[in-house]
């Protein structure tokens, strides 16, 4: 039997791996996608499914704006199942002085060409009457999107198939060899290059990357008449404490097409187990009830957890992680994997084809961590 040789083997059929596989196959590369479970069964399924602009750092602002633009351009091609909706985001000014934060956020976004509008109390009340009455206002970002990530990932997988990509489901990559990979069933796959897009799993093959898990909880209500119309996020969402083992909770809800309300969000730094932590759930429920007092009676039908993966500088980790430029990684998107999927695919394919990346490659290069303690432990004994 002839051994099939690929230009690119992608590990992980989450939304990032699937989008990368699709774009690489479309660019004419011979691609194989390797996934141990089902399409989108990891963080892609566990997350909220937002495509939004974040302004935590200038790099992140440029990155998320670029990535969102790619989604907006793809909108007309996406099947209805993806539930792509420009709900927009409303950043809520919850505390005294928060309106000042709203103003400075608006200024930052506008400077980068991101459309947004400052809402006073009256406008906010008119747009989202279910919110508690004493909020001072908020910042409305109209082009942010809410979608259903597993269906989007499946769309990319089908697109990759359409461009002749092969699938190896039920297998995981256990070892990186020169020019090939070993899979969990002992077989090998011959591939010129390999992309590791399996989230927190990347650390098993590239242990020196300083990746931190951040466990998050989500709650979902039963179906109901829609009463929330935008994605709602409490301003100061990212001001959370970042000490290992600490956890933070912020109000973040999304209306789903089904009429359900998805309620977030929590971050537990350095926690990689998947158990439901009821004290965290309690704080999330309290937060949601504070902002949406009339929701106290809404039944919660499911509670689950997922793992975000973060690098110490808060930026994604995309690029080659070896000197020979054989192995790439695409991980560390923290809570922005869905937002970043298309941008990451573009970034990866440009690297593979030797073309300039949409943003400076060194921003996200894994080799930026070669000075890190974990790298030195492994390589400088």
């Amino acid at each position, binding site marked *: 039997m002839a051994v099939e040789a690929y230009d690119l083997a992608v590990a992980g059929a989450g939304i990032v791996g699937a989008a990368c596989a699709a774009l690489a196959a479309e660019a004419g590369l011979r691609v194989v996608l390797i996934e141990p479970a*089902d*399409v*989108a069964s990891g963080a892609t399924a566990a997350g909220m499914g937002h495509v939004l602009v974040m302004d935590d750092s200038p790099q992140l602002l440029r990155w998320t704006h670029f990535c969102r633009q790619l989604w907006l351009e793809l909108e007309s091609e996406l099947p209805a199942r993806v539930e792509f909706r420009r709900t927009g985001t409303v950043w809520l000014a919850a505390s005294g002085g928060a309106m000042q934060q709203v103003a400075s956020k608006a200024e930052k976004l506008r400077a980068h060409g991101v459309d947004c509008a400052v809402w006073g109390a009256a406008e906010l009340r008119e747009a989202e009457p279910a919110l508690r009455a004493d909020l001072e206002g908020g910042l409305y970002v109209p082009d942010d999107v809410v979608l259903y990530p597993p269906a989007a990932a499946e769309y990319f997988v089908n697109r990759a198939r359409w461009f002749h990509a092969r699938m190896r489901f039920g297998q995981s990559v256990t070892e990186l060899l020169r020019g090939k990979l070993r899979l969990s069933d002992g077989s090998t796959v011959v591939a010129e290059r390999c992309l590791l897009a399996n989230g927190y799993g990347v650390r098993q093959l590239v242990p020196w990357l300083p990746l931190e898990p951040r466990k998050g909880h989500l709650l979902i209500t*039963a179906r109901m008449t829609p009463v929330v119309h935008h994605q709602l996020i409490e301003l100061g969402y990212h001001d959370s404490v970042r000490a290992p083992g600490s956890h933070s909770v912020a109000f973040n809800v999304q209306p789903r097409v089904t009429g359900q309300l998805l309620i977030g969000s929590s971050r537990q730094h350095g926690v990689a187990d998947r158990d*439901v932590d009821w004290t965290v759930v309690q704080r999330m429920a309290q937060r949601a009830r504070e902002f949406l007092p009339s929701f106290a009676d809404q*039944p919660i039908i*499911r509670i689950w957890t997922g793992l975000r993966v973060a690098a110490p500088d808060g930026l994604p980790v995309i690029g080659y992680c070896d000197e020979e430029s054989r192995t790439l990684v695409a991980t560390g998107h923290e809570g922005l994997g869905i937002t970043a999927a298309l941008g990451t695919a573009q970034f990866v394919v440009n690297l593979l084809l030797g073309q300039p990346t949409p943003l400076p490659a060194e921003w996200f290069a894994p080799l930026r961590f070669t000075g890190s303690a974990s790298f030195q432990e492994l390589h400088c004994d």
Partner: protein
Amino acid sequence: MTEAQVELLVVGAGPAGIAAACTAAESGVQVAVLDDNPDVGGQIWRGEKRSAPSSLAAPWLERAAKASGIQWLTGWAAVGPDGPHALLALPPGGGQLVRVAYQKLVLATGARELFLPVPGWTLPGVFGAGGLQALVKGGWSVAERRIVVAGSGPLLLAVAAYLQQTGADVVLVAEQAPWSKVSRYAMHLLLTQFAKFRQGVRLRRTVRSTPYRVGCWPVRILGREQVEAVIFSDGVRRFQESCDLLACGFGLVPNTELGELLGCQRAAGRLAVDRWQRCSVPHVYAAGEVCGIAGVECALVEGQIAGYHASGNLTAAGRLCRKRDRLRRFAGQLHQAFALRDELRSVPDPHTIVCRCEDVTLGQVREQMSWRAARLQQRCGMGLCQGRICGPALEFLFGWKDRSIRPPLFPVPLGALADEMSPKSDLPSSEKSPSASHSECSTRRLSP
């Protein structure tokens, strides 16, 4: 959230739960029994406290009423485990969640009906056989309604007899198992369990004017606004039966969800237990239908074994093991006799709804490779019942296991999850506190 502590927590107040609670309490163990029904008795002894209890139920209900040291938490809904030694529960009428800490746990969560999708099964007027019986026990009148009882197992005859006695016109009892197997089982009962045989004959006599047809199964349910008729097949011919209501029951499914959330191993659709009714998780026992459908006598014996063993009385527990094994063997014969036939897998068509909560059809589900894919891509099992109905059906149709169980076990209002713990000083301390690790939380004696 408030906190309560017990030595032994029993979940489920049916025969197995009652037996476990009584034996443990009589050995001096402090016991709480939690059940979401308003009364003790479970599904099988529902309402027996009010009417005249059966000869099997009466002594146990009496013993349960007499036993001291049992707190009956009826009307309480289990929400989910909080670590290996505590369960969150919602008291009747809602309000604050209570964290019930325990040293040992007995899962006596029983079973529910197996529903298999049949074209038309979402029409009003189609019920589970046990479900319809429960409704009628609860006061719903079916007097003079024409009812077809279909599916499989001895429950069909019991339900038909009950409905007939309450004034219904049971027009047909349709058993999917073939005559050869049903008659062999009847012969087996006659020779080995005469009381059971006599009970069957008595039931049959109650509905003697109703045809009992074996070897046939529903293939389509007809009706515009509600069920009007059912088409049956015997594999060769089809026939139609008009009716106002259809009671369908294809057997029972163990309620393993809480056990699975606790990490207990599942085997062949039930919780796996050892000789002492212990699950794969230390300090967790399972008794009754949750570890395999075997009937009320077996549930009582298993409950006692669990209760005795949990209270350290190994001798008493050991004495019951042979009886349990014998009852389990009988149950095995029952399962063989009423095993579901392969033809039932081809009854639903691609347009038949499988997941009733999310309106997912068989055709949509069949495209997927696994439970997880059907859940993620089609939302199968993601609605209000969280796959309790479609999960077992798909396990039968496609052999899909590993439905992902997530808390809460039942929908819980957001407000209940949000409520603060009561201040410590408000509540008296529990007399016995098996675990010191939760000393920060307030404790109290449970009261039903």
